């Protein structure tokens, strides 16, 4: 506060000093012309005009006006007869005096406006320079730290403000850089930042002269992100807008960086999980291979009793089951989330279903199966490994989430250019609010996540695979009860029914 007062006092002092100098100048010219050289009114008139012009160009309107008046008075007193009196005998001299005064004042006005224009241009140039500096410092903000304080510091630094406040539109937190100042109303800043107040730039002149209190919305693309309050030297409207825009860009940029960072972390996690699963599977598979080859050798190459063979058969079958589980885990781990790589070729639908059921024989045990495939169904354009994996997920789900002994049906039919394969079970179905969620990665059904083991990856992978084939996978609850998963696959081009 004191600072602002002494600032304006200093300005007034300078002006008084300048006016004194002007008066001294006029007095000096008058003395030289009157007492030393004794020149006539015309010559001294020119000298006065010249002085007025110099003063106007150098200092401005007020000084040049005072100079003009002083010069007019001196001209009248010292040079127009009768000299040393303010009376003028010749009416012609009245005209001359008036003309002199108009000339001096007009010239000083013109000169001052040129000067003001130059000053304005200079101010704009400095503003642009500062905006450039601001944009540079906002470009290198630290995205790991809070952005508001960093914006406030930069604006304060480059625009000579005494106080800068930034209000975040999301958190409504206000950060103040510089001295706390009552003139920046927190309520107003919040109202602008949250978009409650229509967004416009508010500027109020405040003491001392030349200082403004500014509140501006920080927006980008019509979306208000926050607000900026400044107390400092007056700025042009475009400059304020530019500052707000730069702040907006910085905020948006940082938010995007954070989102990208999060995506990258998720991606890295997925990769790590896959690598781990792959390594684990390999480690399990090595001893399992020895077990399997040993037990099959004993079973086939050595004579033993029938009941001994029963035990060996159990070892072999369980080793097979483990191997199947490990292979399934490896297959799943190898699929890149969202975009599995597929190699399309012509696939016979009945063969695909048959080989999948064959592979899942032990798992499907106890569930009556019905398979119905439309007569003369077209081949599909698909990756056999991937489609087998997807179909196994659906069948595996049907087995895991339905009571034992309930039937599972597989139906294949076709339209003009798509084959639709459905897996229908007779379980409890899927709650309405989870029909979409179950396809999310790592999502486990609320009702069953405690009672049924699973990774929450199967359906998400199945959907990724079907999507990569340009097909759709969805689930619905059959009217007669039970869940029905359906997916479409494009018919092999040369097989398309026309």
């Amino acid at each position, binding site marked *: 506060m004191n600072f602002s007062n002494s600032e304006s006092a200093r300005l007034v002092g300078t002006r008084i000093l300048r006016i004194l100098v002007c008066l001294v100048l006029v007095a000096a010219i008058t003395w030289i012309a009157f007492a030393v050289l004794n020149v006539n009114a015309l010559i001294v008139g020119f000298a006065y005009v010249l002085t007025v012009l110099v003063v106007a160009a150098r200092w401005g309107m007020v000084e040049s006006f005072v100079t003009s008046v002083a010069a007019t008075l001196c001209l009248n007193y010292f040079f127009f007869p009768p000299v040393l009196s303010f009376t003028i005998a010749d009416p012609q001299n009245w005209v001359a005096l008036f003309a002199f005064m108009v000339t001096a004042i007009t010239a000083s006005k013109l000169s001052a406006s040129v000067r003001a224009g130059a000053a304005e241009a200079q101010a704009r140039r400095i503003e642009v320079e500062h905006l450039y500096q601001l944009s540079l410092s906002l470009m290198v903000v630290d995205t790991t730290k809070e952005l508001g304080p960093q914006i406030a510091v930069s604006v304060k630094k480059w625009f000579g403000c005494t106080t800068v406040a930034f209000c975040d539109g999301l958190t409504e937190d206000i950060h103040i850089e510089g001295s706390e100042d009552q003139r920046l109303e927190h309520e107003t800043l919040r109202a602008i930042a949250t978009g409650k107040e229509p967004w416009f730039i508010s500027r109020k002149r405040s003491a001392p002269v030349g200082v403004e209190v500014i509140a501006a919305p920080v927006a980008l693309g019509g979306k208000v992100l926050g607000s900026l309050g400044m107390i400092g030297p007056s700025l042009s409207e475009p400059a304020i807008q530019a500052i707000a825009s730069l702040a907006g860009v910085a905020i948006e940029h940082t938010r995007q960086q954070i989102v990208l960072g999060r995506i990258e972390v998720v991606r890295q996690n997925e990769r790590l999980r896959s690598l781990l699963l792959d390594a684990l599977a*390999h480690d399990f*598979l090595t001893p399992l291979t020895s077990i399997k080859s*040993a037990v*099959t050798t004993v079973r086939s*190459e050595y004579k033993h009793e029938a009941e001994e063979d029963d035990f060996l058969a159990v070892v072999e079958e369980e080793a097979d089951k483990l191997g199947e589980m490990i292979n399934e885990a490896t297959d799943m781990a*190898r699929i890149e989330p969202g975009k599995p790589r597929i*190699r399309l070729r012509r696939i016979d639908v009945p063969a695909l279903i048959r080989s999948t059921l064959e592979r899942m024989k032990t798992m499907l045990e106890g569930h009556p199966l019905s398979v119905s495939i439309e007569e003369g169904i077209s081949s599909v354009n698909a990756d056999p490994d991937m489609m087998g994996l997807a179909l196994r997920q659906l069948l595996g789900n049907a087995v895991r989430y339905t009571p034992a002994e309930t039937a599972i049906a597989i139906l294949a039919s076709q339209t003009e250019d798509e084959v639709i394969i459905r897996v229908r079970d007779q379980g409890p179905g899927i709650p309405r609010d989870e029909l979409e969620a179950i396809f999310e990665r790592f999502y486990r059904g609320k009702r069953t996540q405690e009672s049924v083991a699973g990774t929450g990856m199967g359906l998400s992978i199945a959907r990724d695979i079907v999507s990569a084939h340009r097909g759709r996978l969805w689930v619905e609850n059959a009217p007669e009860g039970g869940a029905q998963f359906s997916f479409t696959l494009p018919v092999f081009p040369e097989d398309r029914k026309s």
Partner: protein
Amino acid sequence: MRTARILVVDDEPQLRRVMRAALTKQGYIVGDVRSGEAALEKLREERFDLIILDRNMPGMGGVEACRAIRENSDIGIIMLTIRKSEEDRIEALDAGADDYITKPFSMPELFARIRANLRRAPLSPRQGSSVIAFGEIEVDLGTHHVSIQGRDVRLTPKQFEVLNFLVANPNVSIPHAKILQAVWGPDYGDEVEYLHVLVNQLRKRIEPDPSRPRYILTEPWFGYRLQLPSGKP
């Protein structure tokens, strides 16, 4: 018939132990080493008829070892793989493996594959009389020599057998499964990628322009056909 010699290459000692015992009991002479490098070393010292090669080994992996072996040998190679993806299978076959089996496998299945891969078309006793020539290519069914414009072309036994089978049935389309059963054995039939890889290798050796084959033609979704230039039997 003399006893076949088999080299087992795997870094897992337990599996080598099982295989050595089981294969010995089957009547083969078995050697075993724990790495690709050791396998190459062993092959320089001793003669084998078949190699069972693990795909995933520390150091020189199975695929690399297979390529190195193929550089100067047409010995039969069965690859042990753990992965089922098509790319891995094709990579193994491309490196020169004749067959592969996925871990964990049952021994009787491995025995069947070993028998199939040891089986060779017997050398014809009537040498000289069984040379078939088409275009610039000469195939001697007796000595298994193939030459183009008099220049010898080296084929692996499997490559020769596929060519031999096609030459025996010229100008007709032969389904994949039939070729597979004739060359690999009765247990085969679905391993179409074996044929794709092998026919590509064969084309590189005998076709003037392998990308536009003149002799071994593809019958899409069906099989292959050996096209003999017209005018010749």
